[in-house]
């Protein structure tokens, strides 16, 4: 086929039905609503939420996970665009990481060493490791579905970012349930969950996001 003929044909299909950013927002909102519904109906939020909201460590956990989720979504919105410069949005992810490290240091300075291990293990480490990946499923599927129609420069990286965003969103939801408020707990188990989801995303992305 001559290139001119191909162009004639393409021109007949001018209108675009898929626009990356609005589609990504729509699917994320859908995924987050699904996960939030699951959390509220099946798992429940912590019973002492009213008092907890006045505790510094709870606010730290809620704020930190929310900030991570927003910054990870910001990265996710860019990763599907060919030639996108990801350096700044990726660098911004260092902010929640730095805040987490400061939180951990504050905890280590204020809590006696005998409590460090206990605070880190918390009461619900296993629940955290199961529920965060579980809550990340819906946003992950949504993000992957949109990325399949997008054009990421690196399928693996795009999948990892989808996992990171879904994991951070899930963590921000689970934080409302999680009874363990020590930054040590967050640093250990939240980080582990989100990393595992990102690695899963990387492997899925590598296989499914080629275009």
């Amino acid at each position, binding site marked *: *086929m001559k*290139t001119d003929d*191909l162009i004639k044909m393409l021109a*007949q*299909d001018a209108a*675009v039905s898929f626009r990356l950013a609005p589609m990504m927002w729509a699917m994320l909102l859908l995924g987050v609503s699904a996960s939030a519904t699951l959390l509220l109906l099946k798992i429940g939020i912590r019973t002492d939420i009213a008092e907890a909201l006045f505790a510094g460590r709870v606010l730290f956990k809620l704020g930190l996970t929310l900030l991570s989720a927003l910054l990870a979504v910001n990265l996710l919105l860019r990763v599907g665009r060919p030639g996108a410069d990801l350096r700044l949005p990726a660098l911004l992810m260092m902010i929640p990481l730095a805040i987490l490290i400061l939180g951990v240091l504050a905890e280590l300075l204020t809590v006696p060493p005998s409590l460090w291990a206990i605070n880190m293990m918390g009461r619900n480490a296993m629940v955290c490791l199961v529920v965060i990946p579980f809550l990340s499923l819906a946003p992950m599927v949504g993000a992957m579905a949109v990325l399949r129609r997008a054009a990421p*420069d690196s399928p693996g990286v795009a999948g990892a970012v989808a996992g990171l965003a879904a994991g951070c969103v899930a963590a921000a939801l689970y934080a409302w349930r999680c009874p363990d408020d020590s930054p040590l707990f967050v640093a250990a188990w939240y980080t582990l969950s989100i990393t595992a989801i990102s690695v899963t995303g990387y492997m899925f992305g590598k296989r499914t996001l080629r275009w």
Partner: protein
Amino acid sequence: MSNEIRARDDEWASLMRAAMGGDSQSYHRFLVTVTPYLRGLAKRRCLKAGVTTTEVEDIVQEVLLAVHTKRGTWDTTRPIGPWLSAIVRNKMIDNLRRRSRNSALPIEDFEWNLAVEENGSITDRMDAETAIALLKPQQREIVRSLSIDGSGVKETADRLGMTEGAVRVALHRALKLLAGRYGSK
């Protein structure tokens, strides 16, 4: 960006914005003006990679299909040139990977075939023509009518006894399939 390049980019960007809103004429103008630029990029990359430039037109067509199916990933508030060259870069990487995978076959497997190939092209490449052969008969009919025959959607619909909407939907699906043939190879 120099002023000249910026002016060119602005023109392409506004054509593409109109195209995405459904303006076929703007889209045609966009594709026609952008193709020599894409061809230049592809040629330069072929020379760099040591690939014969006879493949360039196939790559250009593959890139055009990718531009078409992925145009929703262009951020309409940003310059379009970098987006276009990123598409070319990605498609070239794919293309070279396919090529190296194919050429990793032992030569005995296709030696007999070498004499028949006019250009000495031994790769299992999927140009648009072969891809079209894999479409469903009706899609193929529509594709031929709109491309090689150069008919419009309305004419094609009348001749095939379909509605214009149905022709548009079938075309849209066929183009997605064609673009997909490259990616999955």
